[in-house]
C-alpha cells in the first residue's frame, strides 16, 4: 500500500523578543513538539530538516542542521539538512519531508524552524534584511525592509478594486483577537477597529497593526506515514494531501502580475495545490495564509478563490475570516500577532491546521476536515501552499 504522509505532532516555543540563543529556541520547540506525542522519543526520529534563513547572518552559524541535531539529542540516519526559503522555510521542510517519508527514504522526520533575529544592537537585523530581497537590485534600492513594497501593493489594490483602509484594519483586528488568548504569540492584545485605524503611520496607507513584527522563535513538527503514526497516537490522522511551490521572479521589476495587487503566482500555487490535493476552494474550512501585512491576507483570500478577485477587502471587512465566517483565516493569530520568525512560520501554520483538523484548536472551526497553509517569501517572489486533510488523497 502506498505510504501517505501525515503531520503527527507539533510544538511552538514562546515567540517574541527572546532572551535566548538560536539553538536554545530550537531545543525548546523540539521538547514542546515531543511533549505533544509522549510515546515518541528522540531515538525514534531518523530525519531532521531545519528551516532557518538568518542563522548565517544573525547567529554567525551556517551548516545549522548538525548543530540543531546535536543540541536536540537527535541522531539522524536518513536526512539531516537545512533549507532556506526565508518565510517559506518551514513549509518547504514539510513538503520535502512528505516526499522523503512517502518514498520510503525516511520514516520519521522532525521539521524544525527557527530564527534568532534580535541582536545586541537592533540595527543589525533591520540592516541584514537587505539580504531578504535581491540584494544588488532591490536591496540597494532600499527595499530590504518590506513596508514600502506592501504599501505600494495596498495602494494598487485600493486603486484597482476600491479597497478601504478599514478593510485592512479589519484583518489586523481579527488576527490580533485570535492571538489575544494564545500564550505563545508575540502580541497577546485584543485590538479594536478604532485602535487599528488610529495607529501610528509606517508607510501610508500602512499603519502599525498592518505590519507583522520582527520575532525570535522556533517551532517543530513530526512528519511520518499514516501507518507509523498509528503506533504512536490515537488522535485523528492529518494527511498532507497536496503541495505547490511557485517562483516566477526575484527582482521586483519582473513581478508577474499586471500590477502589484495581482498575485498571479499565488493563484497558480493555489490551483496546483488544490489539484494535487483533489479539492476545490469550497472544500477549505480553515486557512493559515501569509499575513505578513494586512493587505497580503486581503489579496490571498482572493487568489485562493475564497471570494472573487477584487473582493478581498469586502470579504475580510465583513468578518468572513472570523469564526462563523466563510473561511476562518489565521485562527491562531497569524504572522501579524503570533510574530514571524521566518523559518518557523510554516511549521506554526501546519501545527494550527493539525489542531483544527483534530478538533483541539483554541478557536475551533466546527467540522474542519480540510485546511490550507500558505507562505510568500522575498519581495513577493515565491509562493508555497500546503493542503491538509482528515483523509488521504484517493
Amino acid at each position: 500500500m502506498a505510504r501517505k504522509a501525515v503531520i503527527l505532532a507539533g510544538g511552538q516555543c514562546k515567540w517574541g523578543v527572546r532572551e535566548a540563543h538560536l539553538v536554545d529556541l530550537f531545543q525548546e520547540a523540539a521538547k514542546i513538539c515531543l511533549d505533544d506525542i509522549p510515546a515518541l522519543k528522540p531515538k525514534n526520529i531518523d530525519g531532521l530538516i531545519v528551516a532557518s534563513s538568518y542563522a548565517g547572518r544573525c547567529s554567525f552559524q551556517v551548516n545549522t542542521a548538525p548543530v540543531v541535531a546535536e543540541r536536540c539529542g537527535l541522531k539522524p540516519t536518513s536526512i539531516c539538512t537545512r533549507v532556506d526559503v526565508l518565510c517559506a522555510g518551514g513549509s518547504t521542510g514539510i513538503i520535502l519531508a512528505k516526499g522523503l517519508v512517502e518514498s520510503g527514504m525516511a520514516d520519521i522526520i522532525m521539521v524544525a524552524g527557527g530564527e534568532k533575529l534580535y541582536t545586541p544592537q537592533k540595527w543589525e537585523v533591520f540592516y541584514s534584511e537587505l539580504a531578504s530581497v535581491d540584494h544588488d537590485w532591490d536591496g540597494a534600492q532600499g527595499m530590504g525592509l518590506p513596508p514600502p513594497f506592501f504599501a505600494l501593493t495596498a495602494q494598487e489594490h485600493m486603486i484597482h478594486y476600491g479597497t478601504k483602509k478599514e478593510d485592512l484594519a479589519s484583518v489586523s483586528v481579527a488576527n490580533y483577537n485570535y492571538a489575544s488568548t494564545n500564550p505563545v504569540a508575540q502580541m497577546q492584545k485584543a485590538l479594536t477597529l478604532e485602535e487599528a485605524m488610529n495607529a501610528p503611520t509606517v508607510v501610508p496607507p500602512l499603519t502599525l497593526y498592518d505590519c507583522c513584527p520582527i520575532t525570535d522563535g522556533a517551532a517543530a513538527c513530526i512528519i511520518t506515514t499514516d501507518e507509523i503514526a498509528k503506533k504512536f497516537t490515537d488522535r485523528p490522522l492529518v494527511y498532507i494531501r497536496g503541495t505547490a511551490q511557485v517562483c516566477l521572479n526575484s527582482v521586483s521589476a519582473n513581478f508577474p502580475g499586471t500590477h502589484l495587487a495581482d498575485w498571479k503566482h499565488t493563484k497558480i500555487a493555489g490551483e496546483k495545490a488544490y489539484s494535487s490535493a483533489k479539492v476545490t476552494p469550497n472544500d477549505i474550512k480553515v486557512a493559515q495564509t501569509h499575513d505578513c501585512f494586512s493587505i497580503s491576507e486581503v489579496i490571498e483570500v482572493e487568489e485562493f478563490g475564497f471570494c472573487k478577485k477584487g473582493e478581498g477587502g469586502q470579504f475580510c471587512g465583513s468578518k468572513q475570516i472570523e469564526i462563523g465566517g466563510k473561511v476562518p483565516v489565521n485562527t491562531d493569530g497569524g504572522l501579524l500577532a503570533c510574530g514571524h520568525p521566518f523559518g518557523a512560520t510554516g511549521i506554526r501554520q501546519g501545527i494550527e491546521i493539525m489542531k483544527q483538523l483534530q478538533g483541539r484548536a483554541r478557536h475551533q472551526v466546527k467540522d474542519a476536515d480540510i485546511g490550507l497553509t500558505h507562505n510568500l517569501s522575498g519581495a513577493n517572489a515565491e509562493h508555497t501552499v500546503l493542503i491538509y486533510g482528515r483523509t488521504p488523497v484517493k
Partner: protein
Amino acid sequence: MAVAGIPILENLYPATMDMWPIEAKEFNRIWPFYENLKQGRFTTTKCKNCGHVAYPPRVICPNCYSENLEYIDLPKKGKVIVFSEEVRGVPLGFESPLIHAVVDLGVDPVRRLLTRIVNCPAGVLKRGDEVQLSVFEIPAIPVEKGKAGTIMAERVFFAFEPVKK
C-alpha cells in the same frame, strides 16, 4: 576605523555587511552595467541569438541559454505609476524621506521598474510625474590585487529623480 566589540576588524572591509553591490570586475561578470552607469547610461543585456532583452543584466540569456549577449541602452526617463513615502523609521543607509516608485520606462522589460526616488522632498511627488535616471557615487572598496597591493575600486549606483519643470 574601529568596529565596536570586534577590535580585530579595525580598518578591514567586511563585504558581508556592504549594502551596495560588489561591482568590481574581479568579482562581478556584469561589471559593464556599472561601467556604463558611470558614463550616465542605463543598460541591460540583449541576446544576439534570440533577441530576448533581460533585466537585470545576465551572463546567459534566460530564454535560450546563449552566452552571446550585448549591452543595450534602456530609456532614462519614465512616468510614476504609484509611489510610497517613508518619513520616519527610514532604515540605516538611506535618508528620509525614503521614496519608492513603480516607474514605467515605456519598453519591456522595464514597464514597471521599482526604484528609489531621490532629490525629492516629502509630499511633492504625484502619480504621473516624469522622472529621470540619477547616478551617484557610493563608497569605494578595497580590492586585493596580489603583488600590485590593494587598490580602491570606485563605485556608482542609481535611482530616479523628478524632472525639473
